[in-house]
């Protein structure tokens, strides 16, 4: 059977076309036909027939037992984000299914291709409040790109094919397929045809020639053009096109946290990060540019601050694949509705080769201000306490800027995104839109398995670490060489920072009473070390980066450091605070 599938390896060789097999076995063949060789999940009553088949197919399909279903979703996400393939997570009905909801919501808002498969009570019990029955299709509707309940075995091939197609095409996203237990047991005549289109679904718009012309003409006339790119560049595999566009046009380019690593950190036109804790220059100069070119980004409120004062002076060009994003938050002058790769490639020959030295100087001046006031102190502190920034710098140096960095949510995330340097795309894995604490540890598992040849470093806060800490069990069991760095400030740091700045230092429930993290790691037989003094830091990071086994490093950092710059919520990008 021919499998039309560019992104995943083909595995359909032994698909039993036309044979009568059970729904559960059919599901496995569907997954294999989609090129899936790795699933994260957790078994239970309503999905047992599928697990029975997984047992039989373990030589071709690896199932990783995460220690919580949420972990399975984040692992699938981490896998998808580093590899560009669809991540797969599986759970039983009821509590198993509801435990997937956070990961689904995270994947939905961050456009991550993921297929979740849940077991469901047998069809004849649906609606009877049966044991572990929950309406997961109803529950997951707002957090999935598409979902479906299979109640007949014969539906399995077509629906699974559709699920993968929808998850990965256009603007990717999570899909949930709920399968009643009878459909897993019943037999069907198996025939698998990959899905290549759905009549009502048009995932790949193509930018009109007029829009390309209009954009080029705005760009060619611009005196102070500015690019902000997001994950759309990575999802569209348009990194080369972006670089070529930036270089030919000479336009300074900044990134959203999900766009980070799409353009090399040392590229001279890479001017840094936009958004609430982004760099000073790109934020302030957003309100001074004359043409703003937004590429595969969606003007999230953490990027724009107050919309009433956002880039009002600029003509705005939006390269975007999802029609619903056009004019959603920011009214644009020209929309290039299409795949970022295609739109950029078509724009390139129409733009004039230019440089903008005066304009670039403005970025450089702003950078100098930020460097003196913030960056230098973060990266090369002279005070006694360790900073999160110097740890991230240490990781950059020890890894040669080649690591995948998976961050959790909070201060350490902003520091990791600000200071992590990358040479390669798909390297910055973080929960952007949802800000899901607990994301990093399981996502790092997925990232390591999706990019086994690359060093993967999880940077996590002491709070978020404890939300999914049980996934250490997976790292231990499979001896995944994940490097876990907990930046321990004994606070829910980011919330504490807001309490300090906006709630008169009333530290309500943000003080953490933490366990001995080293002992916990050691309990999982993971090599572990704690650093409290600067003189030990580099040695510990070097030891960690050299380790071929899992490694845990706790760094005791300054308790009450704040992340700056900061755009207070509701303020304008030009009102970014340096202290």
């Amino acid at each position, binding site marked *: 059977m021919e499998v039309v599938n560019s992104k995943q390896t083909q595995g359909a060789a032994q698909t039993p076309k036309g044979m009568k097999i059970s729904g559960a076995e059919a599901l496995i063949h569907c997954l294999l036909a989609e090129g899936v060789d790795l699933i994260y999940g957790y078994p239970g009553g309503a999905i047992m027939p599928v697990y029975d088949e997984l047992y039989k197919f373990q030589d071709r399909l690896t199932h990783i037992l995460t220690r919580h279903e949420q972990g399975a979703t984040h692992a699938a996400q981490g896998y998808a984000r580093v590899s560009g393939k669809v991540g797969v997570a599986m759970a039983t009905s009821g509590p198993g299914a509801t435990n997937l909801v956070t990961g689904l919501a995270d994947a939905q808002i961050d456009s991550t291709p993921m297929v979740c498969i849940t077991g469901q009570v047998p069809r004849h019990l649906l609606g009877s409040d049966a044991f572990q029955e929950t309406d997961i299709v109803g529950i997951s*509707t707002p957090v999935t790109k598409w*979902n479906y309940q299979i109640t007949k075995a014969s539906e399995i091939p077509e629906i699974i094919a559709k699920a993968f197609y929808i998850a990965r095409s256009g603007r990717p996203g999570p899909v949930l397929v709920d399968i009643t237990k009878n459909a897993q047991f019943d037999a069907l005549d198996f025939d698998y045809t990959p899905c290549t289109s759905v*009549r*009502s679904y*048009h995932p790949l718009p193509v930018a009109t020639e007029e829009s390309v012309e209009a954009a080029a003409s705005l760009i060619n006339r611009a005196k102070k053009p500015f690019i902000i790119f997001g994950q759309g560049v990575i999802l569209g595999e348009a990194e080369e096109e972006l670089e070529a566009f930036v270089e030919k046009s000479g336009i300074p380019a900044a990134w959203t946290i999900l766009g980070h690593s799409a353009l090399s950190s040392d590229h001279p036109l890479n001017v840094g990060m936009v958004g609430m804790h982004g760099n000073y220059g790109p934020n302030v100069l957003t309100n001074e540019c004359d043409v703003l070119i937004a590429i595969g980004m969606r003007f999230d409120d953490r990027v724009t601050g107050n919309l009433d004062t956002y880039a009002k002076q600029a003509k705005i060009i939006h390269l975007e694949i999802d029609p*619903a994003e056009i004019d959603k938050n920011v009214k644009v002058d020209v929309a290039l509705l299409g795949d970022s790769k295609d739109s950029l490639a078509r724009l390139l020959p129409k733009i004039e080769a230019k440089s903008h030295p005066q304009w670039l100087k403005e970025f450089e001046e702003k950078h100098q201000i930020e460097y003196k006031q913030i960056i230098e102190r973060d990266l090369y502190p002279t005070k006694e306490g360790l900073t999160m920034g110097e740890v991230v710098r240490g990781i950059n140096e020890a890894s040669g800027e080649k690591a995948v960095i998976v961050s959790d949510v909070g201060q350490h995330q902003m520091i990791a995104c600000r200071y992590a340097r990358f040479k390669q795309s798909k390297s910055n894995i973080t929960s952007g839109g949802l800000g899901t604490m607990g994301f990093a540890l399981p996502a790092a598992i997925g990232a390591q398995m999706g990019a086994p040849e690359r060093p993967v470093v999880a940077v996590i806060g002491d709070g978020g670490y404890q939300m999914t800490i049980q996934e250490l069990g997976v790292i231990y069991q499979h001896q995944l060489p994940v490097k876990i760095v907990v930046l321990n400030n004994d606070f829910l740091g980011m919330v504490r920072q807001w309490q300090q700045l906006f709630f008169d230092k009333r530290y309500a429930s943000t003080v953490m009473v933490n366990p001995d993290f080293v002992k916990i790691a050691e309990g999982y037989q993971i090599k572990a070390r704690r650093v409290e003094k600067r003189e030990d830091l580099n040695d510990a990071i070097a030891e960690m980066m050299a380790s071929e086994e899992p490694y845990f490093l706790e760094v005791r950092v300054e308790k009450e450091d704040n992340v700056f710059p900061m755009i207070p919520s509701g303020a304008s990008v030009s009102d970014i605070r340096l202290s």
Partner: protein
Amino acid sequence: METKYFTISVYSENNVGLLNRISGIFLKRHINIESLNVSKSEIKDVSKFTIVVFTTEDWTRKIVQQIEKQVEVIKAYYHEDDEIIFQDTALFKIASHLLFDERQIQNIIKASHAQIVTVSRDFFVLAKTGRRHEIEDMYHQLEPYGIMQFVRSGRIAVSKEAMPIRELLAEIEEKQHL
């Protein structure tokens, strides 16, 4: 921005979960659905949602974008009242003796062009199709005599301009066969 009535027409595949997805889009934005009607359309196996909202054009456009984003939605449109032909239908159940005791009721029926759907010993049923305000008027006229039951349907509408779904589907099918 000015708030007014907009009628949203959604052509979709027949799908159980879609109503949930579509209503969620309104729910999320706290936009009240004034009326909702689901029916078949002029095309076999294509359903049509007719949704009335009272809001700004900007919100309506954003909602339509979100609706169109749903996998099973073929196409969605929005119209202002002067761009469509639209009707509501209402049923009034009234005690039969009033027909004879209250002469005025017969005048109301004549003047409103309502239809008598059925008459039995105990009650009769009036059907009135028309604009929302005509139905409201009739309601207020009948109310003093006692209405045993009342129900009004959601708005149904056809647009003056074409909504070329057939052409769209033909185009898609052609592309798929390439």
